[in-house]
């Protein structure tokens, strides 16, 4: 699935988000193309998670338009919205697994809600999803409180992928993972993107992820997208924050 010139899967136009007097996003525009992995970076507190949550519809905006799969989420009715929600998956920063359900029940939760499939098929698909995110079948009967941080992220990804979505939002998927685990995770996202033809919207701080996993990078600053393009474009940029980010000590270590 090569990224082609076509209608973007997410189209964000002039959105403004305000919390009290602080303007977090200020007339922001962003397109995400079908089949790409978009890495979304920016300083801490710049509003990366806010943008993600705004697109998903968890944060209300003051102005602007958001279209996902060509559906304007503000003017859509509830059945259209459900249709869109069935086609995306979200991985929250802390995993947000349902703590009173087992891993298996967590992954089956969206299937139960949206699909009419037999228990046998659900169990088998759950095992397939667990294997895809690199977890052993024994994990299925555990509760989220019995999992390690990395396992929680993987289970949360498996749940986000439960319905075979076309689009996944990953909010800092590799934060809190060891470098090897983070590298595996990037590899995993890449593989899944290839096999399932996913579009991935990934908020990240991890330079390694940007280099290894992302097709395109967008940078958020002062409530706007200050740059978007390939990793080479980012390195060539003269913007002070970008220069610091991509030419700092850590960046050089990653590139060498």
């Amino acid at each position, binding site marked *: *699935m090569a990224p082609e010139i076509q209608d973007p899967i997410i189209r964000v136009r002039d959105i403004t988000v305000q919390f009290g007097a602080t303007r977090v996003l200020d007339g922001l525009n962003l397109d995400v193309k079908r089949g790409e992995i978009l890495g979304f970076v920016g300083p801490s507190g710049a509003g990366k998670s806010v943008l993600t949550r705004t697109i998903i519809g968890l944060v209300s905006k003051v102005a602007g338009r958001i279209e996902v799969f060509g559906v304007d989420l503000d003017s859509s009715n509830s059945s259209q919205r459900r249709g869109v929600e069935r086609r995306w998956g979200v991985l929250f920063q802390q995993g947000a697994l*349902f*703590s*009173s359900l087992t891993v*298996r029940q967590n992954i089956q939760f969206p*299937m139960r809600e949206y*699909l*009419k*499939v*037999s228990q046998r*098929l659900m*169990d*088998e*698909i759950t*095992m*397939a*999803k667990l*294997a*895809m995110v690199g977890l052993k*079948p024994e994990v*299925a*009967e555990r*509760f*989220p*409180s*019995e999992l390690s941080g990395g396992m929680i992220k993987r289970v949360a990804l498996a749940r986000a*992928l439960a*319905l*075979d979505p076309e689009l996944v939002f990953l909010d800092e998927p590799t934060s809190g993972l060891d470098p090897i685990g983070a590298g595996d995770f990037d590899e995993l996202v890449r*593989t899944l993107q*290839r*096999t*399932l*033809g996913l579009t991935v919207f990934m908020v990240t701080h991890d330079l390694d992820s940007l280099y290894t996993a992302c097709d395109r990078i967008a940078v958020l600053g002062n409530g706007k997208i200050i740059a978007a393009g390939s990793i080479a474009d980012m390195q060539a940029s003269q913007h002070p924050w970008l220069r610091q980010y991509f030419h700092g000590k850590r960046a050089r270590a990653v590139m060498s």
Partner: protein
Amino acid sequence: MNGDPKLEQIAKGNALALCATGAWTASFAPALERMVADAEKLAGSRPNIFIDVSEVSKLDTFGAWLIERLRRSLTQGAAEAQIAGLSANYSSLVDEVRRVKATPVIETGAITITGMLEQIGRGVAGLTGTVTDLVDMLGAVLAASGRVLIRPRSFRLTSTVHHLEQVCWRAVPIIVLITFLIGCIIAQQGIFHFRRFGADIFVVDMLGVLVLREIGVLLVAIMIAGRSGSAYTAELGSMKMREEIDALRTMGFDPIEVLVLPRMLALVLALPILAFLGAMAALYGGGLVAWLYGGVDPEAFLLRLRDAISIDHFIVGIVKAPVMAAVIGIVACVEGLAVQGSAESLGQHTTSSVVKGIFFVIVMDGVFAIFFASIGM
């Protein structure tokens, strides 16, 4: 292109081709499962069976897995079934599901009579555990108070004042309102029934004794168990869930001293005050009803009240308050610290905090009643 999925059988001499067409996706899963189940019966019917997927327009994990399931059950026969015509787009997905091992799913046990009996048994056996936990916490709180007495600087005044505000000051309106209404109701019922004997005025005796000895403190204690006991359990429980209590411990703080003691102290100080306010509000409400409904004017009410009650009645009531507060606080903190990782566990422990708190308050009230009766108060 997203036509309904089909699985056609095409015989070619010795071989049988199963041609999958259309969209093999999650939305068609029930139909797909039925088709695959039908096709699985063909296992072993021909020496050579292959699954042709070249006409599949759309494939996701569900479809890929069902094709894989079909391939596996056909393979159990004579020869291995092959998947043919796989496009490059989908080959990695099919490879991915091929690596999935079929694992039997652990069945959750059905509800049986023995299982239910076992649960009752465990519940009864757990009762002694409840009592030891409470005694344990009482000891820990007393030990922490001892340490604070030796080193008064380690006492958390700010925290105590904060909890005092939450538990006492903010509870005043609701406590006063409810006890006022209860006072009204007692007086109204008393007058209604006593009037038949022409004993209207005795309603003042009943109101005074009942409110000061029992209702005032018991009602307030039950309300505080519901209002503040549950809050304590939920606070400590969510702190436990997010490892905040472990963090305190690793920093060298004693959670009992930092979290439990200020809460307990606030409750022990608050309940006598609230019980007093509650009793006054109930008497006021009763007096008001006696005047407006029973025609007992305030002066007569007060005169009668002075004769009917003594300081003993007041002491009997108010002495119980701090003890009940301690019981509520200990139950709430024990339950809060027993919360496990899940939201469900938090709910269970908050429920049992309130239930046990109210239960122990009533038990304590009974014990006090026997005690005061035997010393003649």
